[in-house]
């Protein structure tokens, strides 16, 4: 018996969608097995079934040769499934040992337990001190605590859901070493990700899902990133072309911008300076929670700034509200589609009024022109290939990718002087992401200054001419993207400048 896990003909139907359609694959002993697929391909449903959060309508699971049908996560864990979620569930005020003990039935965080944790962490090469308070740990270290917690129950199969989405490149490299070590000790890992390069480097097998079905099983080491992506989306990819004309005059300028932290867990911004020229796409990278939210609110005009200036075509927008700023030529596409960019209960035509009423002339002396709004929404829908029944459809009922296309399209269709787009392809499938990327490039080519704030380094590297990194509220100098290596980006994300040495407060 060479397989740890066999999944045979697992089918799960939800009222509106067939999420898993006779899914069949197996994970071998000592293998890191990638589960690949776009959003909505059925990966999460399958993982939830494996972890006992959902029950399949039909099909069988076999774990170590024995039939396996977990009714809930507790039985899944007892049977030998460990799961590390994308978002951690750790208490910041407690120590590593206390956090681990919390997840284990009957465990008490005494010294014996601490030494057990220490032994395990040394054995598996997961350097963490059991007595350390979790609040003081970096994201990578917290992830190690989550993995340790799973290892305490000696699992047969470890499921990792998008583990590198929260890590810097260096932290990700450390994680790969750890996972490789676990694999050598005979643990099997089901690795869920859409980052094709890391799957090719790390995994020995890959199962590709599309539309709830397994469409391919392959050895990712023998594939290219492009061939894997094409399996995922079932079509050939058009790469965005980044050879673009020389940028023109500066259109958006941030001068020594300082912003107070948003809420107790926010990060204050210090002396952010950046200029974006006509025809240029500038990227701001970095892990979320390093001041991105504050920067976006300050640019939109939702929160006041402490000092500095924001200029559009040389005119300061300070003291102006979001609507006046749009009138001056700067538009915004926030990362949160429903609830910030769009109102879920309103129709697409009504949602157009939120941000486009001024530039698109949809409001005269405060009286709204619903006919014009519906026409504007119709243009966005047609131009950006938004799959919807029409402008009168309620925003809530659209899928994430279509909402994103609509949300970005609404801003692009206003032909702004400058556009700020936050996480423009977050949670969006590859086809929609390609549409959004092409639209951003076309907008820049038409003379708009485009600022993209994103966590996705692949996206920033393929899209932007210059790249700056936001770390702990400070922005590195924007340098041509082609001159930055991944290692250098990682250094910047860790809060150090490229000349060496730390920032004063980092």
């Amino acid at each position, binding site marked *: 018996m060479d397989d740890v896990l066999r999944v045979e003909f697992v089918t799960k139907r939800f009222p509106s969608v067939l999420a898993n359609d006779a899914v069949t694959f197996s994970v071998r002993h000592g293998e890191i097995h990638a589960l690949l697929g776009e959003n909505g391909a059925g990966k999460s449903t399958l993982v939830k079934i494996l972890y006992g959060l959902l029950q399949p309508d039909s099909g069988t699971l076999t774990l170590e040769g024995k039939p396996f049908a977990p009714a809930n996560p507790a039985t899944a864990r007892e049977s030998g499934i460990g799961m590390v*979620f994308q978002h951690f*569930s750790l208490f910041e005020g407690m120590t590593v040992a206390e956090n681990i003990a919390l997840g284990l039935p009957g465990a008490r965080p005494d010294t014996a337990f601490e030494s057990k944790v220490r032994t395990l962490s040394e054995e598996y090469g997961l350097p963490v001190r059991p007595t350390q308070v979790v609040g003081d740990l970096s994201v990578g270290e917290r992830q190690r605590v989550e993995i340790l917690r799973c290892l305490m129950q000696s699992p047969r199969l470890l499921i990792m859901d998008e583990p590198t989405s929260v890590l810097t490149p260096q932290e990700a490299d450390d994680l790969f070493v750890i996972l490789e070590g676990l694999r050598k000790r005979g643990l099997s890992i089901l690795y869920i990700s859409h980052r094709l390069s890391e799957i090719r480097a790390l995994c020995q097998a890959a199962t590709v899902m599309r539309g709830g079905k397994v469409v391919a099983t392959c050895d990712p080491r023998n594939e290219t990133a492009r061939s894997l992506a094409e399996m995922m989306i079932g079509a050939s990819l058009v790469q965005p072309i980044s050879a673009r004309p020389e940028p023109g005059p500066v259109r958006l300028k941030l001068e020594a911008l300082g912003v107070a932290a948003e809420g107790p867990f926010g990060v204050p911004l210090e002396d952010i300076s950046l200029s974006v020229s006509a025809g240029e796409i500038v990227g701001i990278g970095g892990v979320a929670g390093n001041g991105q939210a504050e920067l976006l609110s300050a640019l939109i005009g939702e929160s006041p700034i402490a000092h500095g200036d924001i200029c559009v075509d040389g005119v300061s927008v300070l003291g102006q509200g979001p609507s006046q700023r*749009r009138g001056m030529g700067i538009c915004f596409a926030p990362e949160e589609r429903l609830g*910030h960019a*769009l*109102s879920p209960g309103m129709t697409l035509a009504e949602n157009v*009024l939120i941000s486009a009423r001024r530039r698109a002339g949809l409001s005269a002396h*405060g009286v*709204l022109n619903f006919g014009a709004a519906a026409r504007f929404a119709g243009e966005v829908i047609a131009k950006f290939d938004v799959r919807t029944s029409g402008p009168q459809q*309620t925003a809530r009922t659209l899928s994430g990718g279509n909402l994103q296309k609509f949300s970005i399209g609404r801003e692009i269709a206003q032909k702004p002087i400058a556009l700020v787009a936050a996480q423009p392809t977050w949670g969006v499938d590859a086809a929609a992401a390609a549409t959004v990327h092409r639209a951003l490039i076309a907008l820049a080519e038409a003379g708009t200054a485009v600022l993209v704030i994103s966590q996705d380094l692949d996206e920033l590297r393929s899209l932007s001419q210059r790249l700056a990194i936001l770390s702990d509220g400070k922005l590195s100098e924007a340098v041509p993207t082609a001159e930055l290596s991944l290692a250098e980006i990682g250094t910047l994300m860790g809060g150090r400048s490229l000349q060496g040495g730390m920032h004063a407060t980092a």
Partner: protein
Amino acid sequence: MLRLEPRTERSRLLLWTTPLLAAAMTVVSAYAVFLIIGVDPAKALRHVIFDPFSSAYARSELLVKAAPLALIALGLSLGFRANVWNIGAEGQFTLGAIGGGAIALAFYGVDGPWLFPLICAGGIAAGMGWAAVPAALRTRMGVNEILVSLMLTYIAVLLLSALVSGPLRDPDGFNFPESRIFHESAIPPMLIEGTRAHIGIAIVPIVAIFLWWLTRYHEVGLSLRLLGDTPRAARFAGYSEARAVWFCLLISGGLAGLAGALEATGPIGQLVPGIPVGYGFTAIIVAFLGRLHPIGVVFAALALAVSYIGGESAQIAMSLPAAMVGVLQGTLLFWLLIFDLFVGYRVRLLGPPKKSVRATAESDREMSEAGGA
């Protein structure tokens, strides 16, 4: 097992049929209550439902009761859409009566067509001023407007008592705590001779249609809807929450004040401590019964006016307890809130085994997310 599931779309059909369902269930409940207290239910209900329509005078009284309810509820429903909860319309109504009444008394005996509009303006200003207090406290210090507006109601009622016992007392009134009876120029022109149906009733449809237009076609309506549904999107759209709070409280305070001035100068004709009879609170029921829609509110006000007049009529004819009107209105709100749940949710019939599995899976997931996997 039964299970509540959120609907993806609010049911439009149910949204507008729930008031009717609630009214029907109120009649059923009232029938049961009458049975329990040993009253002939059919006879009592006949008084409640049909007496208000039995004569021309009764029908005019229906309008006299419905007008203040509608004016107040029209203002309240604006704020309720935008999460601005003015619960103190009763106080603003009382202040409107004081403001309008004080002007009428100040110009006692002075004749002129300008006096009555001035009285209305005074009532509006006084109501707005009273509502400005919770607006200022909420926008500057984040104080909850529900508590402030509600507590100001009691201050307003006591203020009225103090004034009619002191400075505004009728000098020839044998020390009764009442003002002079207002003179001809200070009272509203009558719509129907021989009744108490005054010009204020004609104001209601004008205000209702204007507010309907404002909420439907003007940015003000969009901003209030966004603030109520999706506050972050409202900020993204450039609509200030503080401005909306001021707008909603001033408009609802002003309309309540206008209703107060009309009530004091119209049906009552003088300032008495008993002017606040709960219109401001009943208007909250009216606003929700009318689905926070300006036109719906007008019909809801008529329905509640029926409960007042029919209830009083049954009370007098069959010597029922005075609390009966309140019981009827409370029951109506109770059923309305229950049926409102089904606008956003549907009931699902589930087999017991499936339900238990899903329930444990979900609670386990919540645990794993909160505590540790």
